[in-house]
């Protein structure tokens, strides 16, 4: 069980680096955006993992039940905001990618740089 106490953090690290690799190594712009979204999801996983309390439940008061142990509500609030900010960024990024495709005719990074150099 000792290892499983850290498994969430290892998964977070691996997901973070997978998303980061997609952003820096893949030339396709849509792939970069998907990688960015994986990166963001990894960070959400980290925060929610840190908020979990053993034996706790979701931080909602149930009527008539006394002395409940709740998981931490604060990371959940921060991640709620972060998810919506993430989708806003993705939407704007997709808009830019579509416009780039219309102007340059391609969404591959090296081809766009070639066209820019001419």
């Amino acid at each position, binding site marked *: 069980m000792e290892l499983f106490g850290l498994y969430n953090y290892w*998964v977070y690290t691996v997901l973070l680096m997978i998303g980061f690799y997609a952003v820096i190594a893949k030339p396709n712009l849509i792939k970069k955006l998907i990688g960015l979204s994986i990166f963001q999801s990894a960070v959400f996983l980290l925060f929610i993992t840190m908020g979990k309390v053993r034996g706790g439940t979701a931080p909602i008061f149930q009527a008539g039940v006394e002395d409940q142990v709740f998981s931490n509500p604060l990371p959940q609030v921060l991640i709620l905001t972060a998810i919506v900010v993430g989708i806003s960024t993705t*939407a704007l990024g997709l808009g830019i990618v579509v416009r780039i495709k219309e102007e340059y005719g391609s969404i591959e990074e090296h081809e766009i740089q070639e066209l820019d150099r001419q």
Partner: protein
Amino acid sequence: MTVLFGVFLLTLIVITALAIVQTQHLFVAVILAGIFSLLIAVIFFLLDAADVALTEAAIGAGISTMLFLAALTLTAEYERSGSANRLLALGVVAVTTLIMIYATFDKPRLGDPAAPVQQHVAPWYLEHTPEAIGIPNVVTAVLASFRGYDTLGEVSVILTAGIGVLFLFGAKPRRQSGPQRIAPHEPGRGLRHYLIPRVVGQLLIPFILLFGLYVQFHGDYGPGGGFQAGAIVAAAFILYALLEGEAQILRVLPQRLLTGLIAGGALLYGAVGVAGILLGGSFLDYSVLAANPITGQHIGILLIEAGVGITVTGVLISVFHALAARGSV
């Protein structure tokens, strides 16, 4: 048992992420990203984050997949392979992974009640929510009342993204460079020739809207709130747009009304804050909105969640329109 289930799901998530980066067919990558979001939503639920799981499922698995697919029809279908510095990128990523895994050994174990994050502000919120705000869902209380400023900032971010997309797609494309699509019917007519999806969709849309309203107003008592409700209502309208076509949805919800919704929600939020000042309290102080401070809190939370839901709905439908109408120009 739950531990095993959690470990299994986390491993599945890593495999899905690897598959997303590996595949060169962008459509497959987008659908896998939708599966990834659903799996993460289940993990969030296992970690006692019910609100976050609902938001991730509605926004990550639903709206995000739809936006990516709409953008894919306007761009490319396959990714061209190869990049010059792949080995360097792999090296950097591997070294950073090892360093971060070494760093995780100092972290408090999963579920540790003595961890520093559980000590300072969180017990204060849990203790003071019933007496100061009086609603059962602590997450909504913190989001809407204790940390109302952050949520105002978030509404501004969604507003800015909506304005940005509307600006980007305000100019008509200079040349017809879109991919050739196989459409036997006129573009913009939706799925009018396909009876089964239309009938079932028209049957379900009222219930989806009803569920969206339920989620909006039950944010105080269970998982829910403005963001999830905005995404669900936007999904209902987008389903209508897919079934009946762009022309029809623009008759039902003209673009001016959508722009009004986008601005109106944020305006409502700010107005509640200013009303707090005018009635003698500070900005976004809901206790002065009614004679009884707890009732004032309830009214304030209701109004700002409505503002958030309205803005999110307006922005998501506008972004869909911007992407969907582009192809048929």
